[in-house]
């Protein structure tokens, strides 16, 4: 699971504390357990070693004592104390026969003279010795018995001298009459030790006298050396102990560590010493440590898995909630809620319930907000459109108003000027009429005066014409539309137009003869102006073309063309402006009137001109609605 790999911090925190709380003590206990077990194992090993030492010291004591008792029992025999040499010889032979450890036996009288001597390695009838100075003789004579004097018999075996006083059974109080002395081999002890502690093993056991004499050793080879001794370090330790028994760790100069135990041998002042390398004890302890650690490892692993499961169980709903909260934060409400577990009966369950409630409310609110935003956007767009449309309308209206105002101003001025000029013009006209009349009544009128009067009259007419043109252009009047058939209307107009003789007229009318709705007076003025212009630019000879056509877009075209010199391109875009003229005498209103009339008819005018070929004006007028007949 992808989410599992991204376990949250909470899970790790729980895991951490769980481990700290549960594994910590386990580790501490385990550590202590291992330590304790190591110590106790060592102690146990040591005490075992000690008890071995004690047991063996007992064995040594018994061994020696049993031999001593054999000697003492023999010496106490009535037959033996009679000091009958023959009888004594019999007994001694018996002893040698039965007790293999006995090496030599001798009997001495009270004066310290040997009376009898026999031994396994002695030739028959050996030389008798004087022993009154011997320690064993003096000891036995004084205290009844003597055990001591260790030696290397024949330089090899450790041997012990045991002496028992032979007591006169008759005498009151009893008094010693001789000494029975035995030299016994201690090889048996080494054999016993080697059986108990085989030389192949690492444990070593030894019996040692206080002076360092090696009585017995688990390794027989050690004993058979003439100078057999224990190492001085060990010897020093065990001989200086005040207790009867004990043990402990010994550090050897070579760095090795030993576990050593000792026990004093009763009645003999010897010490039994048992040692084994500390590794052996430690090996056991290490094994135990290993096992403990293994168990501990399993425990930790179990706890880890368990706590993982617990942490996961606790944090799973929280994590899901967090993911859900993330999605919610991004405004995604459409997520699948099926992976959200049903609320548990605890704080997390409460949190989940609260969150889901909050989410629902948020979803609702967000929905409302989005809806409101969309509404607002739509409304804004609508408003923008409205504002744009209104702005365009206003702009158009403003343009129209400016144009109208300008035209109105021109009109007003023209009207005033026209009116004001017409009065003096009328006066001049009246006066010249008066003069003409008066002259006409005279007998012989001067022909030059008459000619000038004609000039004045002509100029008055022209001035009046200009005034009329200006006033016509600036006049504010309502259109009076009238439905006409374009061909018919034009035909009538052309028929009354005063074309000069040098001008030809060429007509090409559309047979469809479309209907148009026009103010005939104004439209007539426009067409007349165009024809008039055409005639003016062709003073010698030329043709006026008049053509009508129905356009594909439904407009009706009236084309007025001439074969004059054409209009220079640089002035072509100015010709429709009011008061623009290239003529010597002209108001510059002819084409302006054309444009004004076309505007008023919701039509348009354009011009095409080519030098030396002529100019064509095209008037486009909307076609009239088809009238039902």
């Amino acid at each position, binding site marked *: 699971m992808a989410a599992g790999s991204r376990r949250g911090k909470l899970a790790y925190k729980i895991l951490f504390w769980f481990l700290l709380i549960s594994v910590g003590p386990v580790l501490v206990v385990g550590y202590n357990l291992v330590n304790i077990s190591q110590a106790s194992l060592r102690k146990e090993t040591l005490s075992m070693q000690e008890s071995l030492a004690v047991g063996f010291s007992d064995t040594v004591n018994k061994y020696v004592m049993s031999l001593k008792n054999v000697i003492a029992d023999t010496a106490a025999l009535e037959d033996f104390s009679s000091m009958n040499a023959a009888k004594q010889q019999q007994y001694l032979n018996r002893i040698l026969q039965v007790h293999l450890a006995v090496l030599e036996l001798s009997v001495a009288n009270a004066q310290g003279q040997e009376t009898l001597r026999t031994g396994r390695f002695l030739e028959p009838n050996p030389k008798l010795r004087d022993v009154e100075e011997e320690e064993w003789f003096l000891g036995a004579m004084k205290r009844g018995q003597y055990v001591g004097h260790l030696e290397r018999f024949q330089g090899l075996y450790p041997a012990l001298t045991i002496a028992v006083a032979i007591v006169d059974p008759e005498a009151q109080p009893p008094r010693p009459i001789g000494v029975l002395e035995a030299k016994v081999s201690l090889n048996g002890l080494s054999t016993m030790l080697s059986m108990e502690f085989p030389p192949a093993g690492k444990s070593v056991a030894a019996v040692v006298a206080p002076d360092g004499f090696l009585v017995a050793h688990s390794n027989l080879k050690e004993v058979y050396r003439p100078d057999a001794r224990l190492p001085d370090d060990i010897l020093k330790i065990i001989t200086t102990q005040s207790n009867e028994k004990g043990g402990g760790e010994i550090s050897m100069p070579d760095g090795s560590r030993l576990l050593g135990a000792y026990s004093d041998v009763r009645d003999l002042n010897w010490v039994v010493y048992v040692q084994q390398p500390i590794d052996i004890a430690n090996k056991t302890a290490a094994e135990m440590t290993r096992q403990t650690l293994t168990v501990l490892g399993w425990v930790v692993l179990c706890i880890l898995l368990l706590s993982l499961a617990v942490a996961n169980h606790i944090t799973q709903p929280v994590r899901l909630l967090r993911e859900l909260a993330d999605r919610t934060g991004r405004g995604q409400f459409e997520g699948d809620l099926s992976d959200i577990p049903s609320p548990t009966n605890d704080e997390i369950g409460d949190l989940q319930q609260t969150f889901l409630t909050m989410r629902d409310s948020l979803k609702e609110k967000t929905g409302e907000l989005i809806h409101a935003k969309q509404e607002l956007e739509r409304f804004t767009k609508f408003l923008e459109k409205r504002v744009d449309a209104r702005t365009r309308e206003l702009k158009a209206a403003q343009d129209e108003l400016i144009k109208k105002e300008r035209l109105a101003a021109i009109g007003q001025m023209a*009207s005033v000027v*026209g*009116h*004001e000029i*017409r*009065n*003096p*013009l*009328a*006066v*001049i*006209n*009246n*006066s010249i*009429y*008066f003069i003409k*009349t*008066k002259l006409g009544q005279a007998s012989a009128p001067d022909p030059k005066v008459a000619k000038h009067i004609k000039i004045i009259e002509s100029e*008055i007419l022209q001035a*009046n014409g200009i005034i009329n043109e200006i*006033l*016509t252009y600036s*006049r504010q*009047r309502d259109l009076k539309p009238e439905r006409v058939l374009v061909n018919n209307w034009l035909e009538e107009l052309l028929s009354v137009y005063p074309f000069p003789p040098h001008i030809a007229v060429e007509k090409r009318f559309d047979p469809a003869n479309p209907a148009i709705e026009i103010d005939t007076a104004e439209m007539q003025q426009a067409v007349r102006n165009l024809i008039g212009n055409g005639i003016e630019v062709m003073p010698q000879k030329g043709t006026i073309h008049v053509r009508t056509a129905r356009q594909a877009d439904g407009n009706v075209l009236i084309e007025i063309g001439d074969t004059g010199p054409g209009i220079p391109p640089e002035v072509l875009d100015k010709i429709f402006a009011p008061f623009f003229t290239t003529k010597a005498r002209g108001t510059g209103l002819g084409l302006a009137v054309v444009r004004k009339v076309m505007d008023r008819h919701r039509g348009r005018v354009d011009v095409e001109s080519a030098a030396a070929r002529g100019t064509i004006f095209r008037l486009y007028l909307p076609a009239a609605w088809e009238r039902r007949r």
Partner: protein
Amino acid sequence: MPSGKLPKLLIIDDDAHLRESLAEVLELDGFECHQAGAAEAGIETAKKIDPDVVIMDIQLPDSSGFQICQELRKRSKATILIMMTGRFLSAEEKKQGFELGADEYMTKPFDLAELSVRIKQLLSRNKI
């Protein structure tokens, strides 16, 4: 109107030159011409002389020509009333003028020969 007597003509206009030139031209044609420079003076003169023809400007300093026209028509149905104008008159204005009693309109400057003929025509119709 007794024959042999010249027809009486009243010209009402604030422009003295126009008045005089017009009067003198028409006198040549055989009219007895009177003049007035304003509406009030014109009406007064008309009361006094009882003109056969009144030629008046539509625009006068103290009144509109139409008002004089209305006033004079009230006084006499026979008087020929001719309106002079320096500007274009709309059809509506013309119609209004005719309803108030105007007989003819003339736009300045006017053809005096035509005017003279037209006045004589109107006068002769009145005689019948």
